[in-house]
């Protein structure tokens, strides 16, 4: 039991993610979390504005159930399966973040400098969350998939488009982390 409460090493977690993908394939589905964003648009009536959202979203209800499960899983993991220990980040990472003005680094999953209500209720804080979410939602649909659809499923299926997309993910991520975050914080 104690081992469940500690953070799980990569060589346990990675293969378990592959299990999630494999089980969804065995159920006749595919592992793709960003598709739900398009489904939400369709449910909200976006089909009136663009043909891209004119599809029978009921066929994708199963994926919304995966989302519901993911929310429950997140709740269960922090409520029943966590010992509240600080994350074992590289000390260099902690130092870099301290230099950018972040404190209590790794004491929770997300930095309070971005996700606390104190941060969110500033113009800058609100703009960060909206811009970040918008880029993820726009980019993932433009690229035709996200980390689950391209980086895990697409690469596992040896698809060139997914490799190009993952290279793109990294170019974008490196630009943000190395050049833009230091300007924001």
């Amino acid at each position, binding site marked *: 039991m104690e081992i*469940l409460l500690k953070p799980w090493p990569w060589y346990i977690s990675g293969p378990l993610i592959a299990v999630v993908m494999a089980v969804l394939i065995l159920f*006749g589905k595919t592992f793709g979390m960003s598709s739900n964003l398009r489904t939400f648009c369709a449910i909200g009536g976006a089909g009136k504005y663009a043909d891209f959202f004119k599809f029978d979203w009921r066929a994708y209800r199963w994926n919304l159930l995966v989302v519901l499960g993911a929310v429950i899983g997140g709740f269960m*993991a922090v409520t029943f399966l966590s010992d509240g220990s600080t*994350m074992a980040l590289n000390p260099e990472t902690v130092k870099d973040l301290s230099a950018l003005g972040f404190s209590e680094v790794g004491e929770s*999953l997300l930095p309070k400098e971005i996700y606390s209500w104190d941060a969110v209720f500033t113009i800058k804080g609100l703009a960060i969350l909206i*811009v970040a979410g918008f880029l993820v939602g726009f980019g993932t*649909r433009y690229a035709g998939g996200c*980390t689950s659809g391209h980086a*895990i499923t697409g690469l596992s299926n040896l698809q060139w488009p997914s490799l190009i997309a993952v290279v793109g993910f990294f170019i974008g991520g490196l630009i943000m982390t190395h050049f833009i975050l230091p300007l924001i914080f």
Partner: protein
Amino acid sequence: MKILKFIGIGIFFGIVLVKSEAVSWYRIFEMFKFQSFHMYGIIGSAVFLGAATIWIFKKTNLKDTEGNKINLPPKDKGFPRYIIGGIIFGLGWALAGACPGPMYILLGTGVFSMLIVIAAAVLGTFVYGLLRDKLPH
């Protein structure tokens, strides 16, 4: 039963991603700083095992629970959409520290400000749908 199996796989996914810390903004930052093997190990081992699994599924002509032959639809051909869309996604991923799966999982961990990110992601998808015919693919 059908409902439970999908909720169940979602719960499992959520727990794995929290316990692996892959949902953490800090881990994403650390990954893009090349300061830890952790995230590369997670993605790398998932892809390695995933590739072996899909290869076996195809080789053995395995059928899914619906009785259909396992067939992963290939992605459309093209280059601009994958590289440009990928870069846009990557910018957002590193800023939010979360991609679409972790967004929901983190909401479950009690971070309700994530609802703003999710709403903005839905808006981003909607705007893509509006502009789709004008963008290079």
